[in-house]
């Protein structure tokens, strides 16, 4: 096999590159990123400051694995007939097989174009670098990123207001009871909320709400979701549908082109989904690497997310249905987990919140139970003296 080329040097692309070597591939591997930095982990950007980048791998690790890391160059086109990619800065490169791992970017609604977003290391440096005690920060969006940023900004002493269009926080990702715990904590830390309110327009230093009310700020940051970076794939004629459409092996509609991570729409259980998740990016990258080398097994991993806000950690396994009933397991010190069952009785999701890693062990076990298709007894899920390992192992 000739050269394998990976477009996108985020979590997914980097993991795929190393996984190709771990799987024994000996030919050329080229990993291309459009940022100038050595590839870094994105999750800390909203959670910590100062943002000394945490590199996914050291520079010497790429050399040792003979991964040709190309930084600061953007791939502008894929010529599928000639099997070559072109660079925006000029020049091109042949591929035998190609992995598109272009990730996602922050989305903005019309009228919000002037808001800052947080996606890259340079975004974090600009945004968080200017926060200081007394500075007024308005965050549009009460999801993971907005709330992590709110917590970080409070730690830096900034005056923080969060505006959310839905009537409650994190409505897309976690059940109400969990969102309420986080909201109470943010309020206790001094964050102001304006919920159930749309934003009409944004300037660099002000926000106009749907009712015409204007809020002045030193900085406006939006965290209202992400869009998959599909333009490159779309221009090459690959099938797109809320992300680059792939099968369980991350194959696109072109047998020599694969797509994985945030940019792809992949089969999950009986449906399709697109995730914006650090863990999925890793797992996709590793799985796609094996598929590129001929692996035929379908991806089965269960989605897993986490968020850190102050000393609280939320963890989610599976895809919760915000409207579905939950079974509650109290772990002490305010920590708890909400389990949801599918109509057939199998475990569908588990969402937990608690100080530090209070929920981690049980969420991990829940993830394994979901993956194995286990039908747990509700009473046992609710009883914290029942070790979930016993349910996993039957």
């Amino acid at each position, binding site marked *: 096999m000739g050269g394998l080329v990976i477009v996108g040097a985020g979590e997914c692309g980097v993991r795929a590159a190393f996984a190709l070597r771990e799987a024994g591939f000996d030919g050329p591997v080229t990993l291309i990123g459009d940022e100038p930095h050595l590839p870094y982990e994105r999750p800390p950007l909203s959670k910590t400051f100062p943002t000394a980048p945490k590199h996914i791998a050291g520079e010497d690790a790429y050399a040792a694995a003979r991964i040709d890391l190309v930084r600061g160059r953007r791939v502008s086109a894929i010529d599928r007939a000639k099997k070559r990619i072109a660079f925006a800065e000029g020049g091109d490169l042949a591929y035998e097989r190609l992995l598109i791992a272009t990730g996602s970017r922050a989305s903005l609604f019309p009228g919000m174009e002037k808001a800052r977003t947080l996606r890259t290391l340079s975004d974090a440096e600009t945004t968080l670098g200017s926060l200081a005690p007394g500075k007024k920060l308005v965050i549009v969006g009460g999801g993971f990123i907005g709330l992590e940023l709110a917590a970080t900004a409070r730690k830096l002493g900034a005056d923080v207001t969060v505006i959310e269009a839905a009537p409650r926080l994190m409505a897309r990702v976690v059940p109400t009871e969990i969102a309420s715990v986080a909201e109470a904590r943010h309020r206790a830390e001094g964050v102001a909320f304006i919920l159930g309110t749309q934003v009409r327009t944004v300037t660099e230093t002000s926000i106009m709400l749907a009712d015409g009310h204007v809020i002045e700020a030193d900085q406006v940051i939006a965290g209202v979701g992400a869009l998959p970076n599909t333009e490159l794939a779309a221009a090459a004629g690959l099938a797109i549908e809320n992300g680059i459409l792939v099968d369980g092996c991350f194959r696109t509609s072109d047998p020599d082109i694969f797509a994985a991570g945030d940019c792809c729409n992949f089969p999950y259980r009986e449906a399709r989904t697109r995730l914006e998740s650090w863990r999925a990016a*890793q797992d996709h990258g590793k799985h796609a690497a094996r598929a590129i080398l001929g692996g035929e097994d379908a991806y089965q991993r269960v989605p897993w997310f986490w968020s850190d806000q102050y000393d609280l950690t939320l963890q989610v396994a599976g895809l919760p249905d915000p409207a579905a009933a939950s079974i509650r397991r109290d772990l002490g010190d305010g920590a708890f987990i909400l389990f949801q069952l599918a109509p057939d009785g199998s475990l569908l999701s588990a969402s937990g919140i608690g100080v*530090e*890693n209070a929920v981690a062990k049980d969420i*991990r076990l829940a993830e394994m139970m979901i993956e194995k298709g286990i039908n747990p007894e509700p009473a046992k899920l609710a009883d914290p003296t029942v070790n979930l*390992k016993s349910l996993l192992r039957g």
Partner: protein
Amino acid sequence: MSEWVEACAVDDVETEDLIRFDHAGKTYAIYRSPEDEFFATDGLCTHEQVHLSGGLVMDYIIECPKHNGRFDYRTGDPKGAPVCVKLQTYPAKVEAGKVLIDIGG
């Protein structure tokens, strides 16, 4: 040089689980295997300095509660991304119902 310290009682750790043990400004993890053998490692994950004590033990693997970095707690060997740096291990033994670990190194 050996420096054995008492970490906990045997019954403080459930089978196939771990606890945190702090001593002289350092933090350790004490493991009890599915076969009721005891092991000890540094208490913090080598990826982001998270306490491993909130993590899950399955067989001989400890998984970090934060980002799922995995180690074989008998040898400290990393078992996959995001961890790549080995976890320091310490000899452990049981005497009179107590678990002792050798932090002398």
